[in-house]
């Protein structure tokens, strides 16, 4: 088994340049959560005020809407949601300095181009393994839009949170490359 690369947020260009599609990575440090509703509101507000609820420069956004924490838990189950739904908003955020996103599934061509252009990476976490992934989250803080409930923007502290580099700055795509190896039927 290939050893995982360990990285810490915020991410620098140097770290990004060293990541290739297919790499296993363990992420440490603070990341921000946002999914459909938070992205929509965040970018509508940015259009009006020129401000975002947090400084995205160097940061990573995790596309997740966790379940509520049970007593004794830091956070409930917290696996990734499907990333392409955020494609409409992602290039804008990457242009403002966001360095990473974490989700599951394919990204569209406009996001892949923006990753190259702005030097950023899209990581895939193991979808649906939410009870396991929550164990790598050790702190949670509310950041904005609390009224959105599970869709609010929170800060999560990651302890070796496992992901795979899905799309890198060199045009690599782990899903396309992986599936090609095992595809015997083209439909």
């Amino acid at each position, binding site marked *: *088994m290939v050893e995982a690369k360990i990285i810490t947020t915020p991410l620098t260009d140097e770290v990004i340049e060293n990541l290739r599609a297919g790499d296993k990575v363990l992420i440490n440090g603070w990341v921000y959560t946002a999914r459909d*509703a938070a992205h929509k509101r965040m970018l509508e507000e940015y259009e009006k005020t020129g401000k975002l609820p947090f400084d995205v420069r160097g940061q990573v956004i995790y596309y*997740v*809407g*966790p*379940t*509520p*924490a*049970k007593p004794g*838990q830091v956070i*409930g*189950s*917290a*696996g990734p*949601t*499907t990333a*392409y739904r955020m494609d409409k908003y992602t290039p804008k955020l990457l242009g403002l300095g966001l360095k990473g996103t974490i989700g*599951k*599934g*394919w990204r569209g061509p406009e996001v892949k181009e923006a990753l190259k252009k702005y030097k950023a990476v899209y990581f*895939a976490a*193991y*979808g*649906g*393994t*939410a*009870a*396991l992934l*929550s*164990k790598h989250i050790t702190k949670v803080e509310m950041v904005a839009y609390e009224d*959105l*409930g*599970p*869709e609010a923007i929170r800060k999560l502290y990651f302890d070796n949170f496992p992901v*795979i580099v899905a799309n890198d700055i060199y045009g690599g795509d*782990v*899903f396309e*490359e*992986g*599936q*090609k*190896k*095992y*595809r*015997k*039927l083209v*439909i």
Partner: protein
Amino acid sequence: MREIHVNEIIDKVKDLVMDSEYKLPEDFIQAIKIAKEKEESPLGKEILDEILKNAEVAEKEQVAYCQDTGYPVFFVEVGQDVKIVGGSLREAINEGVRRATKEGYLRASLAYDPIFDRKNTGDNTPALIYFDIVPGDKIKIKFAAKGGGSENQSKQAMLKPADGLEGVKKFILQSIANAGPNACPPFTVGVGIGGTFDYSAVLAKKSLFRHIGERHPDLRVAKLEEELIELANQLGVGPLGFGGTTTVVDVKIEIAPCHIASLPVAVNIQCHAARHKEIEI
């Protein structure tokens, strides 16, 4: 007439929902174990192992298997000799969902309206409930927690009768390939062929309650199911779409009579959070 009080229904629905969210069906777990042995991709094998571990942790710690605790969908068969007392059956089912959401720490995952404010309803109600009246004096309640990721990748098509069996196969396989990593494979694929536009989709969803490996009683349909399982696993999608030989663990097909001008087909993709469970009261 046998009387059933709504309080009994509320309690049983609450337990049904919570149990389903914490523990995947045993037949599905067994299917993943078998798939893990057969999977050719090393990463695919590792992912299937993580899926099994996740199921273990969720059951042991009584926490949601997936953070997307899903849209609550019920198929309720009410015996015609049953009298519901103490209130409305529909409200009792919704109350069960409400209590499961609160007491079971489930995520509120429904929006009041689809295109205006999209405000969260806060308690996973209103559930989607399909009622049927059947002979007997019992109530059968089938529950599915339908996650957004896999529901979003589901497809329906009104094919032409001339498209025939080949057209149907192609549409099903294309739907599976397109769903790819977005919908958390390995999938259980529910297919409805025939009926009307809407009924084909209901059949597809209903078919997912069949046990893994339980073939359709019509041998022609059973053969088609087997063929599609084999072909789907040649698509290369693999566990979570990273490539591999396990794309589906099962394909379940239901058929119904249809109009002489029509060939409706619906494909309901079910992710590995295959939460389906039924009870009888």
